[in-house]
């Protein structure tokens, strides 16, 4: 029942009048779609980076995202930190969490068959979810409102949350920072080398373990930024809140071409905007909202398995 009330609380943001769609309405939906898409993009980057390096679906990524929301929540509510400090602490702690998950669950079996690593990833995801239920409690909590982000602005006839504009800006800025990091710095060069060929990169003197930890750290921190903004946008937070966004963002990464960061961002936008517009134009299908992403995934996998930006990989025998 909890999920139903949750969905009901959320719906008014998107489902404003499907019958008479004015131009203002359309732009409001589009703005909502773009901001949701930016959140998806931030989380999808983490998936795509990890997949690029380890060829592994980090099933725990969605739960790391959930943990970040709780960290920020406890920073503000329990420890009484100002919001900016709490957000920074939450982002750093989440990065550490990502690195810890990698070193405990993935590093020991890096050489094992693919299926074992995948099971370990599922186990890690499940462990985080259940730990969250035990430690944080299964009941939904309300994420604190931060005026700067959650105040309404009025443009023409429509009221839009500040957050709707802030999220895409933050995403684009972070994307440029990340691009700089990967293309211009030494650590970025190491990451690119490891993703091309782990063994050779190791022989050439790249510290493979450190690079992989670094990748997990960056990916988790981006997920944390996404998570905090998610908490501001959808204030009801739950231990299982990471599951659906996690799966959808993986799908976004696949749509964009897994392993490609720009692709992940594009995929995130396609998914976010598509989802919102589907609900806005065809409100009778709104119950199928969560299925939309999966149908899109299967269509993409069948017709263009490498995604929009992905390179074609031929199989070695």
């Amino acid at each position: 029942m909890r999920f139903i009330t949750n969905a009901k609380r959320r719906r008014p943001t998107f489902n404003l009048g499907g019958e008479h769609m004015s131009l203002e309405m359309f732009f409001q939906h589009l703005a909502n779609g773009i901001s949701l898409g930016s959140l998806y993009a931030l989380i999808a980057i983490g998936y795509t980076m990890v997949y690029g390096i380890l060829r592994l679906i980090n099933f725990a990524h969605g739960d790391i995202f959930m943990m970040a929301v709780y960290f920020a929540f406890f920073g503000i509510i329990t420890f009484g930190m100002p919001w900016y400090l709490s957000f920074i602490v939450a982002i750093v702690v989440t990065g550490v969490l990502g690195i810890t998950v990698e070193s405990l669950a993935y590093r020991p079996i890096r050489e094992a068959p693919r299926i074992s690593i995948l099971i370990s990833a599922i186990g890690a995801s499940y462990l985080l979810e259940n730990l969250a239920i035990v430690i944080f409690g299964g009941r939904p909590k309300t994420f604190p409102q931060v005026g700067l982000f959650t105040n309404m602005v009025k443009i023409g006839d429509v009221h839009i949350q500040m957050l709707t504009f802030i999220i895409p800006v933050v995403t684009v800025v972070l994307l440029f920072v990340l691009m700089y990091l990967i293309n211009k710095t030494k650590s970025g060069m190491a990451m690119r080398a490891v993703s091309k060929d782990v063994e050779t990169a190791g022989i050439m003197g790249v510290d493979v373990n450190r690079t992989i930890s670094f990748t997990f750290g960056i990916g988790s921190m981006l997920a944390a930024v996404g998570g905090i903004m998610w908490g501001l946008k959808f204030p009801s937070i739950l231990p299982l809140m990471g599951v659906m966004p996690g799966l959808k963002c993986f799908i976004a990464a696949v749509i964009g071409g897994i392993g490609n960061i720009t692709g992940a961002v594009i995929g995130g936008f396609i998914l976010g905007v598509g989802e919102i517009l589907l609900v806005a134009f065809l409100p009778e299908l709104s119950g199928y909202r969560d299925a939309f992403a999966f149908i899109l995934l299967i269509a993409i996998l069948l017709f263009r398995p490498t995604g929009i930006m992905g390179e074609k990989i031929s199989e070695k025998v």
Partner: protein
Amino acid sequence: MKKRNLILTLTAIVVLLLFLLIADKAFDSYVLRILNLCAIYTILGLSMNLINGFTGLFSLGHAGFMAVGAYTTALLTMSVTTKQMNFFMKPLISPLDQVVWPFLPSLILAGILAAVVAILIGAPVLRLKGDYLAIATLGFAEIIRVIFTNTQSLTNGALGLKSIPVTTNLFWSFGIAVFTIFIMVSLINSSYGRAFKAIREDEVAAESMGISLFRHKVLSFAIGAFFAGVGGGLLGNLIGAIDPLMFRFMLTFNILLIIVLGGMGSVTGTIISAFVVTIAQEALRVLDEPIIASIPALPGLRMVVFSVLLMVVVLFFRNGLMGTREFSWDKLISKLSKKPLAKGGTK
């Protein structure tokens, strides 16, 4: 030797039957429920192991197939008045609201429908490999769940079905479990089974040996889904109430835990670990209650233990309990008898 093994197997089945006859009378409903669940999880574990362990297709769509089976069986076995009681929001669509079938044909149809869904899903999706296949099958299970939540006049939507006739008893569950074991063992030792294992070991090599990858993958997928559907039907008619939320990823996770713990690719291992995991899940309920009076209860701690267990098994004992080994009477007897067997040409 073959004759002796056959006699031993038949004896074991008779012993099991005697045990069930006594258990049915002697134990209370709580213990009976757990025993039923053990048998049902054996069926589910075997069906998933056929797809994941023997054919090497990492599929996470089991909850979806179970949902198809459970809903089919429930809708076919419920009486007309129960259906009217359940569907008070919107009436059930026309032929189904008058049809009442006996349990066995309903179960068989449940399995067939699940297999048909599997073929429809598998035909496009089984071209994918590894983690892509995992996420696509997971997606399909989610889609099935979303569809079932939204088709009010067929599945009663999020309200679920209640007062399903509780037909499943020890004889049904263990009978079908033994039947499943028999089918699985025969299948795995047939030429099809060898083809499945060849695909698991190396797809390219298997294909170049003349094995049709597509046909065998779809076959394995459909047979697995058939038994998942039957298991889902048994489960629904054991518990007596189903709703779409029951068939979330958690259900697939439980079955995955069973096959990983027992050994991917071992029938014996799956049977043992289905019993161990099901009984342990009940026995560890203590963890969810307050252990010391002063410390408040931590609900959910039990599932933390199970997730840690899964990870420990994958990280340190990758082969599980049995690896790919199987139980056989010959091995048991040679272990029990003091003098070494099979010396010279006696075998």
